[in-house]
């Protein structure tokens, strides 16, 4: 293909206009400003429209990438969004938070010699255009099957299951423990990366398609899964997330000023602590902040701390730069916003004052030794290298374990030794008849799009069950 249309490669990949780092690091508005229609059409024209598109193979939910891009190239932006909706209920979310460099864009043939098509930017563009200018026509759902499905958890996997099953004509009720739907999309990912208005709009689209959403309902506490079946549901999908933060079990870890990333981000995003006292939930505004861990959640925490007025924000990580698990773009954005990376460093204890408030922490320098089970070189402490970092706020972002609240109330669902639900890797089927699971509660903490991929697989399997049998 490339040989027949060589001139297309010459158009440079679109550059996303962004808020200036020095300005954006003190506000909560979205960092990327979005492509203009002209930029989007030009970028879309770079797509080679491959006969066997590799990009689609790289997408966990098999978005019809060449087709939607072709519609953008033809300036049919609404058509492009409808094409996205055929396989993805959350395009405005995915266009923002997917690691495209490892997925669709990572496979794009243009990337072999130059820069891949900016598929993520185009997805975001189409979905945003439709939200602002569209005629508010939600996807058309299939003829009613009369079957009812309970979706437990309204995060990315639950919303995907809901969207897919609605399209197939099933009735869907989504149960959410918090007062707002969206799961990690509302409590976890910050406003500046994913505006909450966008999540609300994607959820509203599902509601227009017929989804019922019951917030403030903790399945496992007020109602069990068996009771849902008694109430007439024909199948259930569990997508409750990981949801039990890990701490490091270090001396002083319960001092005031030490937060789990979950708490820090929930207070800020869901409870809108950054708007205190207009909103009632307070959030500590640290001057000297340390974030422990180096994943995407750690970057979200560090950039949030900067926006809450920190003088300095350090990311302390025990391995080296190459092993930092966050997306390259997140690391880049963080560095642009004056976040400092303190690498090969591991905390050993925290210090506080007589009121139990954090004043500092002790760290050890590390060096890289032999590779460990993960294939990464194991960090080994350098003896006698202890040093102190003064800080008044620490965010612990070293991952999550499986939350047992729902699984404890459902004893007939098989768990692995970490408490995660055992789900069939291809279908998400659990050991309990009529119950599927997917996302972080099965895999442990992962990405939005992987959870959506699991939701897609489960929705197909649930549909087979409802129409053909277990």
């Amino acid at each position, binding site marked *: 293909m490339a040989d027949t249309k060589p001139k297309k490669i010459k158009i440079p990949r679109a550059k996303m206009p962004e808020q200036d780092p020095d300005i954006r690091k003190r506000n909560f508005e979205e960092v990327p400003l979005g492509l203009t229609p002209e930029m989007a059409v030009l970028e879309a024209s770079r797509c080679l429209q491959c006969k066997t598109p590799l990009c689609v193979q790289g997408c966990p939910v098999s978005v019809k990438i060449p087709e939607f891009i072709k519609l953008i190239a033809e300036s049919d932006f609404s058509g492009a969004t409808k094409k996205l909706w055929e396989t993805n209920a959350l395009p405005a979310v995915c266009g923002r938070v997917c690691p495209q460099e490892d997925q669709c864009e990572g496979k794009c043939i243009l990337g072999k010699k130059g820069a891949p098509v900016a598929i993520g930017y185009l997805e975001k563009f189409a979905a945003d255009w439709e939200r602002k200018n569209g005629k508010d026509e939600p996807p058309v759902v299939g003829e009613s099957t009369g079957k009812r499905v309970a979706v437990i958890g309204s995060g990315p996997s639950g919303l995907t299951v809901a969207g897919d099953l609605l399209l197939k004509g099933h009735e869907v009720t989504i149960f959410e423990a*918090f007062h707002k739907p969206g799961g990690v999309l509302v409590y976890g990912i910050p406003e500046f990366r994913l505006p909450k208005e966008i999540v609300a709009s994607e959820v509203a689209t599902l509601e227009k398609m017929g989804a019922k959403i019951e917030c403030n309902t903790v399945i496992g506490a007020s109602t069990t899964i068996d009771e849902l079946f008694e109430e007439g549901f024909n199948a259930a999908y569990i997508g409750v997330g990981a949801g039990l933060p890990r701490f490091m079990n270090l001396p002083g870890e319960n001092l005031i000023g030490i937060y789990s990333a*979950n708490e820090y981000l929930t207070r800020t995003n869901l409870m809108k602590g950054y708007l205190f006292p207009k909103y009632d939930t307070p959030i500590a505004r640290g001057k000297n902040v340390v974030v422990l861990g180096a994943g995407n959640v750690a970057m979200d925490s560090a950039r949030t701390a900067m926006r809450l007025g920190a003088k300095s924000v350090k990311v302390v990580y025990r391995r080296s730069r190459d092993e930092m698990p966050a997306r390259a773009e997140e690391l880049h954005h963080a560095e642009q916003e004056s976040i400092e990376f303190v690498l090969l460093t591991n905390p050993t204890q925290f210090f506080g004052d007589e009121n139990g408030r954090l004043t500092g922490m002790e760290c050890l320098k590390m060096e890289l030794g032999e590779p460990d089970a993960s294939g990464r070189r194991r960090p080994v402490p350098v003896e006698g290298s202890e040093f102190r970092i003064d800080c008044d706020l620490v965010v612990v972002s070293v991952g999550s374990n499986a939350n047992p609240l729902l699984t404890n109330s459902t004893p007939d669902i098989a768990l692995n030794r970490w408490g995660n639900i055992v789900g069939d890797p291809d279908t998400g089927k659990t050991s309990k008849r009529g119950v599927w699971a997917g996302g972080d509660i099965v895999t442990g903490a992962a990405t939005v799009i992987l959870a959506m991929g699991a939701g897609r697989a489960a929705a197909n399997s649930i549909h087979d069950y409802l129409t053909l049998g277990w």
Partner: protein
Amino acid sequence: MAKIVNRKEMAQGTIILNEIEAPRISRKAKPGQFVILQADETGERIPLTMADTNPDKGTITIIYMVVGKSTARFKELKIGDEFYALIGPLGKPTHIEKVGKVVCVGGGTGIAVLHPITRALKEAGNDVTTILGSRSYDLLIMEEQMRAASTQLHICTDDGSHGHHGFVTDVLKEVLEKNDIKLVVAIGPIPMMKFCSLITKEKNVKTYVSLNPIMVDGTGMCGCCRVTVGNKTKFACVDGPEFDGHAVDFDELAKRLASYLDDERESLDAFNKCKAL
């Protein structure tokens, strides 16, 4: 949903009772469990242990002291108004069994939390001595309900306006001396629970306390409510709220409860100013 069907002011308007429509929660709730309430979209999520449930009516009862902005806002809600959010039942229920002679000690709004536990212990066949304390007799709540739920009842007031002139710990000591007590349940202000636990530890009598740390989600997701029990970190929302009083680090809990004192003051001042306008 979450509509207030009954409301009462107690202790000269400093303590409020709300009976709230919550059919699912009322059917499932057991003594010792809590709910999380939010008055409006901008509000804070407040954990409150249930004082009673009525599965037939489909209601739960909460009793809270007005201390800050959130509870001041709760106080404004009238019969017929709805809470913006209500979830539960959360936390582990109290372990109720027949052990023989039991003492229940309550102070402040802790008495409300103690009420269903006391009743359940008595219904399980225990001989229940209840000791209630308050600063002054006119601030004491639920005397009659607690009398009905107990085998015998003692009242203590700091100012001597009724019953024993002094602290609940004085009477607790006496009861422990004279009886073969198998279990003590102490629920109230942190100093009360701390000193009750110190006394019962000397006598080696098993003691439950119910903790009220700051929470956000209440389902184990955030770790805000972590408490040190037996040198281990526990989440009060999923591992508690009830713990072995002999193992709890009460001083740490008291400090953590003061995490946001300045913010809470700012929030309450703004609220009062707003109301005055």
